């Protein structure tokens, strides 16, 4: 199936229907294997067993950030090419990305308590993830408030682009803010090099999370296409009367 065919939502729908079970299956398999490897992974010499949280935390962080990347690309698709599937892709990515960012935040907080003695510090990296989460919430609010999906798609695309420009600036300002006020009082995991016995399970989990992301993303896109179909049918109905 040529790429151009995907421009057609119906074709895309057919594709999704065909691919989704396999994707879901692969996700489950990789997850199972990843969790098995995680179970077998050694404890960190500094952090003990709590390093097991990392296998959720880090993929969550990566996917949370990647989802905004997907939204940015989709935004360009919406604004520049006016591609109907781009709208759908952007909208479907928002809740999933927000959920992964949320996972990163919660697992980080749960990790912070045993490691730092507190659930939350206003550390630069934590804080910039929090702001990313706030941006996601804004995006969800935007989608939530708009009755008309076409309207909200373009508005969201603009917000996604503005956010994409702003995220590096926020990151930079937060670094500056944190170092200005308070020298880091927190110890992060020492040692630049991560041992392969930890790294490999981590990468497998990251793969599992990525698969999960795409499974959910495609499923959400399918819902969105159907929702628009319902909408256009209702519009038909309205004009019939």
């Amino acid at each position, binding site marked *: 199936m040529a790429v151009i065919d995907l421009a057609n939502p119906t074709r895309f729908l057919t594709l999704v229907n065909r691919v989704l079970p396999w994707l879901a299956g692969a996700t489950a398999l990789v997850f199972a294997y990843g969790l098995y490897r995680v179970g077998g992974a050694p404890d960190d010499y500094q952090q003990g067993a709590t390093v097991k949280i990392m296998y959720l935390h880090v993929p969550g962080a990566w996917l949370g950030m990647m989802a905004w990347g997907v939204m940015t690309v989709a935004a360009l698709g919406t604004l520049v090419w006016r591609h109907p599937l781009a709208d759908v892709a952007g909208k479907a990515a928002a809740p999933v990305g927000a959920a992964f960012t949320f996972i990163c935040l919660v697992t980080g907080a749960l990790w912070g308590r045993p490691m730092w003695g507190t659930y939350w510090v206003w550390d630069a990296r934590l804080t910039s993830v929090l702001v990313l989460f706030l941006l996601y919430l804004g995006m969800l609010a935007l989608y939530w408030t708009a*009755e*008309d999906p076409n309207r909200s798609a373009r508005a969201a695309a603009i917000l996604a682009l503005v956010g994409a420009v702003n995220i590096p600036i926020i990151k930079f300002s937060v670094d500056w803010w944190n170092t200005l006020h308070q020298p880091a009082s927190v110890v992060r995991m020492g040692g630049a090099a991560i041992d392969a016995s930890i790294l490999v399970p981590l990468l497998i989990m990251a793969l599992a999370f990525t698969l999960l992301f795409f499974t959910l993303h495609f499923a959400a896109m399918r819902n969105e296409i159907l929702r628009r179909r319902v909408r256009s049918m*209702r*519009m038909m*109905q*309205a004009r*019939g*009367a």
Partner: protein
Amino acid sequence: MSTDLIELSATDLACERGGRLVFSGLNFAVSAGEALVVTGRNGAGKSTLLRLIAGLLRKSGGRLDLTGGAAGADEATTAEQSHYLGHLDAVKPALSVGENLRFWTTYLGAPRGAPIRPALEAVDLAQLSDLPAAYLSAGQRRRLSIARLVAVPRPLWLLDEPTSALDTQSQDRLAALMRNHRSRGGMIVAAAHGPIGLDDPRELKLGAVT
């Protein structure tokens, strides 16, 4: 609907808006089955008069009485005995057509669970009952607003340019509804710039102020 002999009468009625007298010394009476068309130039006070009767403005002088029927003599009661159809449609886009009508029906006092379908049919919106009202065009929203008049029986209809935004077919349907309302002893006071399909209405011409 109460079919007792009922009458709306105004004596020496006056109203002030924004510190200016819009009209004064107005006298008229409408009784069961009658219709009064209020005409006059832009700014003459047609909308003002209707809102006054509906209890949405305060009169600054004179008397306004609704006698007979289930009504007492005070303004509040006039409001409760009237339907007001103004320029705004009181339709919530987020609710479906049916939900919109059901809410107003319940709120305005029809017995709970009374069917709304006949009213929707009367304005030809029955097939759209489940549709969110956001999808309606200007004229369809107006028709939904008219359905309220049918769903909750109240003796006095106050209609401010009711045919605006309606296509000819819907105008005919409204005319039929008004005829039916009057035949059952209802009263109509309508503001209009042209004919709106009322049979031999009485006319009240408000003087042009400017």
